[in-house]
């Protein structure tokens, strides 16, 4: 049974694309057949983060409009043979997507894959709505900041009203992924705590990804962080999140502040 997962947030720049790539690679690493679909038509990035930008020939719009067949547009990952990418078009905009066209592509992908992971564009407009439209489950990516949390709240409301499942009166599984969590700043009260975010959004937690240079580096070299440095704290957090998506019970690790000598001396006073 294929599962269609939308990675969404409302707000931009919180880590949707990075998380799509990392979760997709983590799931594919366990042998699951995974396709990551870039819905950010006009501002595509997933191809870069996946390191496939030089192999894009056809894209989602070409498939939706019938210019290309689905197998022509799918790009197989060079590192994991069960990981595939369906890129977005950079030259078109979101108006080129139609609900019927997206529906046909998603059902065709359901036939071939275990996981269809849709990387939503930011915002609450057409592109974001179409990305979530056919989803069975959603990963809501949130930074522990008030603006991001409020936008996520808005997106959760839309997941409960604008998806096909919600319209049929069914339940869409929602998972909260807190990214760019900085333990030191949270301890100083400069960020919302995990408890605050969970209390505001009342949505089950999928994982907490610590803020890390590894994530930036991975994006720049075009390798999902779960492949480029699988032992790093953010990669481990993504791998555990992927295990939870598969229904496994994994204890939640809350990133802790590793204090250096200077921090231990000045830490309290700096607060």
């Amino acid at each position: 049974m294929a599962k269609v997962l939308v990675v969404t947030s409302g707000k931009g720049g919180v880590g949707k694309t990075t998380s799509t790539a990392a979760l997709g690679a983590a799931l594919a690493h366990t042998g699951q057949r995974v396709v990551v679909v870039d819905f950010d038509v006009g501002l595509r990035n997933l191809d870069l983060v996946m390191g496939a930008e030089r192999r894009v020939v056809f894209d989602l719009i070409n498939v939706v409009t019938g210019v290309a067949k689905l197998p022509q547009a799918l790009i197989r990952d060079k590192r994991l043979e069960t990981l595939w990418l369906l890129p977005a078009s950079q030259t078109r905009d979101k108006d080129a997507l139609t609900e019927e066209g997206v529906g046909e592509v998603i059902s065709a992908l359901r036939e071939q894959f275990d996981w269809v992971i849709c990387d939503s564009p930011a915002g609450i407009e057409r592109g974001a709505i179409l990305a979530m439209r056919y989803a069975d489950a959603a990963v809501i990516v949130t930074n522990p900041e008030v603006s991001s949390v409020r936008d996520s709240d808005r997106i959760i409301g839309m997941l409960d009203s604008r998806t096909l499942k919600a319209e049929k009166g069914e339940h869409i599984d929602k998972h909260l992924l807190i990214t760019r969590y900085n333990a030191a700043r949270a301890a100083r009260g400069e960020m919302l705590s995990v408890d605050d975010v969970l209390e505001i959004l009342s949505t089950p937690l999928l994982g907490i990804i610590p803020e890390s240079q590894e994530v930036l580096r991975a994006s720049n070299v075009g390798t999902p962080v779960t492949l480029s440095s699988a032992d790093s704290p953010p990669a481990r957090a993504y791998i555990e999140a992927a295990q939870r998506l598969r229904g496994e019970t994994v204890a939640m690790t809350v990133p802790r502040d590793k204090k250096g000598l200077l921090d231990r001396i000045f830490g309290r006073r700096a607060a």
Partner: protein
Amino acid sequence: MAYVLTPEAPVFDWLSELDAWLARSPAFFAGRPVILDLAALELSSSGIAHLVASLGERNIRILGLEGVDPSLVGPELPPMLAGGRAATMPQQNANANAAAAPATAAPEAQAPAAEPEAAKSAAKTSLLLEQPVRSGQSVVFTEGDVTVLGSVGSGAEIVAGGSIHVYGTLRGRAMAGATGNPRARIFCNRIEAELLAIDGYYRTADEIDAKLRSQPTQAWLDGNAMMITPLN
């Protein structure tokens, strides 16, 4: 909050008066819902449509009509509202507690329409929401009380003809007694509200005593003053 505009004849003069006023406070109506009270005018259906369009050109969004024969209000016009209280042209230095006409809000497209519909048919005098009300959602229930078992998110709003009960945290806006009921109250388990309104009298977050923050609280009207006090 909604304002009530009461155009007077001749409409042309009234519009130029409005323009002069808008020139001084151009952003006054920006993003605010406005109710149009046509009791002082005798307009045909097309006359009303023309007036609504003229106000639209001035970026004044008409949310509902009052004081007009319902037979004149076709589907292309804003809906009829009842129970609003007359208010004159808004004053710039208006008292914070008495500036606005009764609050009413339009249900947004994303509002959980299905839930209220279902609940309405079961019991017409109250609406029970078992799910949290999320940012951007607007729940309008003019028939009576609204009870929310979860929280009301920042940027969400509840408009009730009766009282509003929130068993979680109230972070958004709550407008009780919206159809003209000064005895309506707002109760919440934790107050972080952006705005509280009862029968048109309102308080913004800044005017809510900081000591009450995060406490179980109720708000009610004592004459013209909104009282906000701890529940325990």
